[in-house]
């Protein structure tokens, strides 16, 4: 059986790992390569490196850092931030990235998902969606690191991304991110029922129980978190042992 994945997310700014609360108040927490290698050793199933300021400041992605990461790490990793054209993705693939994640650029130009999927294969293309809860089942998709709401709605956009060839959805709830009160399980489960591609849940992890809930009630395929790992609030081996003990399929 396929194991549920635990994914530490390293937000990168100026070559350093950072983590903000609700995408603001950015603090530095360490060297991305060192931290990534440490997590891989600890049993992380994958890593995500997001250049969080890339879109906002119009910077292109961090190919050199990706090369260093690829040299030192023996598990898969996804990179995102500032990818708006095929050639950006191509440079990252050649630098050693296993998957790329596109977010704002896909919202602005949905054809980008189709083009990426056609060119590199769906498996290479993660569509990241940052969304904010409106009411009931309505969520608005935001862009530019959560700064700008759009007229796109979460579930319709996730479905469109799948139909255009996205291999995976990385859904971050802006309402849950950094709050540490658990993931957006209801929306995640709805998305999981609606789509047939894997869903990475992001935003809200504060305890080991939250991961159990996201894999059961939230029906997520992977759970992503940042600060709880960076600040050593939860150690990955402890988390994975706990999940195994409560009956979740997990790689130890």
């Amino acid at each position, binding site marked *: 059986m396929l194991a549920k994945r635990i994914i530490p997310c390293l937000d990168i700014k100026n070559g350093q790992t950072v983590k903000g609360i609700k995408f603001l108040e950015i603090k530095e927490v360490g060297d991305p390569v060192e931290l990534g290698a440490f997590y891989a050793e600890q049993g992380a199933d994958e890593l995500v490196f997001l250049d969080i300021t890339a879109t906002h400041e119009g910077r292109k992605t961090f190919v050199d850092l990706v090369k260093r990461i690829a040299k030192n790490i023996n598990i898969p990793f996804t990179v995102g931030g500032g990818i708006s054209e095929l050639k950006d993705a191509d440079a990252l693939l050649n630098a050693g990235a296993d998957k790329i994640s596109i977010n704002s650029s896909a919202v602005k130009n949905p054809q980008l998902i189709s083009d990426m999927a056609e060119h590199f294969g769906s498996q290479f293309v993660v569509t990241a969606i940052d969304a904010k809860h409106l009411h009931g089942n309505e969520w608005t998709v935001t862009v530019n690191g959560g700064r700008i709401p759009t007229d796109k709605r979460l579930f319709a956009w996730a479905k469109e991304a799948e139909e255009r060839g996205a*291999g995976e959805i990385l859904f971050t709830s802006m309402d849950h991110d950094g709050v540490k009160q658990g993931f957006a399980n209801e929306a995640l489960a709805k998305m999981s029922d609606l789509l047939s591609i894997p869903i990475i849940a992001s935003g809200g992890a504060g305890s080991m129980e939250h991961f159990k809930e996201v894999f059961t009630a939230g029906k997520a395929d992977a759970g992503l978190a940042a600060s709880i790992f960076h600040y050593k609030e939860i150690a990955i081996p402890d988390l994975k042992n706990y999940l195994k003990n409560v009956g979740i399929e997990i790689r130890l």
Partner: protein
Amino acid sequence: MPSQKVDTLLARNRKERFSSMKTVIIKYNAGNIRSVNNAIHRLGYKAEITAEPDKIVKADKVIFPGVGEATKTMDYLNKTGLGNIIKELKQPVLGICLGMQLMCSHSEEGDVACFDIFAEKVKKFNLPIPNPDNIKVPHMGWNRIHDLKGDIFDSSIEGEYVYFVHSYFVATGVHTTATTDYILPYSSALQKDNFFATQFHPEKSGKVGEKILSNFLKL
């Protein structure tokens, strides 16, 4: 002979063997080429990434990695003549992911004829109906390999997790050397003569993957 001298001699032999052994990674229009190269380097070996027929034919080991789409990749490999070269290789060849699928006879991905090294068809995973466990396609993440056979596996990794990313699969058959269960039991590795293939990515499968790559490089 004093044991220290033996150790030194063995080390020197090993070093010479490593440095004289030529491993090539086939360069083509798509592929996680650098990842495979990095993994080989982490094991202490060297490899050259090349599309030059002469270097490929003369290499001791050939790795044919893969991320990409079957039809486009086959077009490219046919046009460049690399396809014919790969088919005729006599040294150990390791196809990875798409590389493995292209070594089969046909892929449903774009309905394309492939190298026909393994007389197997590559099919798309169909989601179970109904699907109460929310099974997804692609098959993405860590899953177990079992019933291991052949020269690149050993009993120490029976049942271990390795990393997969794929939407198409090869059924189990005479060439199957590893089986994985996802929707159905299928071939996660194949072997025929000097041709080896893994559906999973050993270069991304942590220590277990390193063991498999190392077994291949030591053949």
